[in-house]
């Protein structure tokens, strides 16, 4: 149970910006900038942050859908960036991704049977009747009836489409799933269905999830531990109850107080300004221009993630 399935070490991804007459690199977007953490087998790690903080880039780099600028990602001890093409392809079966928008992640010209069976074709896992059986298995796991098999994506509602996307991710019998905002494009009343499905699947098959979202209420419901990102860096990481009840980093604190709770009018911490551009992030602590606890050294020194309590890490200079 406590074995690490994923270990991320000092991962960086900078996207170059080309410019000038010769189209040389003039700057870079520091989307992910030195991130380290690990995910234990069977747990759900939540990755939260505002738009543009690098959560999606991080999720994709962990699966090597994007090549990193620097750093390592170990899957069961092996660095996935050292793998050869055919080795990586095998690994793709064990790691899958569920995307945000099922309206875009399903090919409109393929039937559901083709979509869910595609991983089996690509990895030459099954053919003919065997393939059909495995596709049916996947469909059953996500609660879709077999008569849907030969329908096209446009015939499905948003929630059903997301079920198809999950069935496709399950077809290769994965161990580790990255779910990137899996419910944010769905209706409120349908979200609960998908969240419960993800929980049931985890219970039954022991999946490990990296759950990426900006919706802090669903993260609290889904996750065991939470990592908070700001401008490409993790600023706080810890067990879900610690992070929500006892946030230490000033950004996490403001983020938590900003969530409107139905039926309550809360006093909240209002942050100044908005998130700076990741092309030219502020020196020192990246949060310092907006921070209420700012000290002079915050603009100079870059804080490291330090364990303040067992399993609770914070990167902040002014608040211990």
């Amino acid at each position, binding site marked *: 149970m406590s074995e690490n399935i994923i270990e991320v070490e000092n991962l960086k991804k900078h996207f170059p910006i080309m410019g000038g007459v010769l189209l040389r690199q003039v700057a870079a977007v520091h989307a992910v900038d030195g991130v380290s953490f690990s995910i234990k087998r069977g747990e759900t790690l939540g990755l939260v942050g505002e738009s543009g903080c690098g959560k999606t880039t991080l999720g994709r780099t962990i699966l090597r859908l994007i090549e990193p600028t620097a750093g390592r990602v170990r899957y069961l001890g092996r660095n996935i960036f050292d793998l050869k093409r055919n080795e990586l392809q095998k690994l793709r079966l064990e790691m899958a991704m569920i995307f945000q928008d099922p309206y875009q992640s399903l090919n409109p010209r393929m039937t559901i049977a083709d979509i869910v069976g595609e991983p089996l074709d690509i990895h030459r896992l099954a053919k003919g009747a065997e393939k059909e059986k495995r596709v049916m298995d996947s469909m059953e796991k996500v609660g879709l009836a077999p008569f849907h098999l030969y329908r096209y994506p446009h015939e499905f509602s948003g929630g059903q489409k997301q079920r198809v996307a999950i069935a496709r991710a399950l077809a290769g019998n994965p161990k580790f799933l990255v779910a990137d905002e899996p419910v944010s494009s769905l209706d409120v009343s349908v979200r609960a269905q998908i969240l419960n499905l993800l929980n049931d699947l985890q219970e039954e098959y022991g999946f490990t999830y990296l759950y990426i979202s900006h919706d802090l209420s669903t993260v609290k419901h889904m996750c065991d531990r939470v990592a908070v990102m700001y401008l490409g860096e993790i600023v706080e990481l810890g067990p879900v109850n610690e992070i929500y009840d006892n946030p230490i980093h000033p950004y996490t604190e403001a983020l938590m107080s900003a969530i409107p709770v*139905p039926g309550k009018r809360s006093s909240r911490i209002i942050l100044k300004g908005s998130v700076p551009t990741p092309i030219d992030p502020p020196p020192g602590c990246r949060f310092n221009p907006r921070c209420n606890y700012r000290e002079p050294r915050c603009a100079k020194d870059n804080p490291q993630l330090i364990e303040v309590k067992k399993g609770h890490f914070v990167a902040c200079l002014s608040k211990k």
Partner: protein
Amino acid sequence: MSESVLKINDLTVYYYIPEGVVKAVDGVNFEIGKEEALGLVGESGCGKSTVALSIPRLIRTPGKIVGGEIWFEGENLLAKSEAEMRKIRGGRISMVFQHPGASMNPVFTIGSQIAEAIKLHQDVQKSEIRKKVEEILYKVGIPSPEQRMNDYPHEYSGGMLQRAMIAMSLSCNPELLIADEPTTSLDVTIQAQILELMKKLRKDFGASILLIGHDLGVISELCDKVAVMYAGKNVEYADISTIFKNPKHPYTIALLKSIPRLDVDVERLNIIRGTVPRLINPPSGCRFHPRCEHVMEICSKQEPPLVEVEKGHRVACHLYTSNGKQNQPI
């Protein structure tokens, strides 16, 4: 407080498309008192934005307001001429939309767009307009407005654009402000800033507010009353605290239970089975009956009227009508 600024009676709006008639809004009733804020809640496609657009009569073909009355300060807006409406729009009734980036014209400066609204609706000297724009931008918290008013929309961030939109809509001291999901496209910390701003401005300007949204948390921050919509109907109407403490309609109850909450821990979320129906061919009787846990025989046959169950708390459900009571209590 008792006199109403806006009163909507049986508003019915249909969209006529090749496949048939979409009954987007089908008999919606509510009222907003002076300086009151009403939240209109519902999922996507339930007709809440159509209601918002109907009030200033901005529904375009294939949509059409086919029935009902919209009373604004004692005048029926549906009986007004287009020229009269144009004076009201942006003046006495103004709107804030969901995507601030899409509702600004990218080739004019922020300042000139706000100035346009002021020129159209107010009798202000040309020389004073600039000062007025500066003043209103300052009020909504744009830093150094005398410079930033010369910026184009792309030079603003999302939160600042929404502030500018709010500035524009408040520039003519409207009696009614309609805000259609004003914070949906913004991040939580920016959303908090905008909500705080709207709360403050509500006090300063004394406008009545119709806030449309799907996030009950956001609604409860700002509103006094809530109208819950489902598939083109309003199913419940009550005080904000009543909706959360004592919801009556099975849809409202199920919706509240299906949202993960920060303050309550639950093992499993409650599920509303099925999906929102298509409004080309809505279910007969009560539109929620195919998904309802308490469905009775009458529900598929007869439409439940909106009845008052307590003072100021109205529900459209057969569980609370005389027809339904003999069948089954909850």
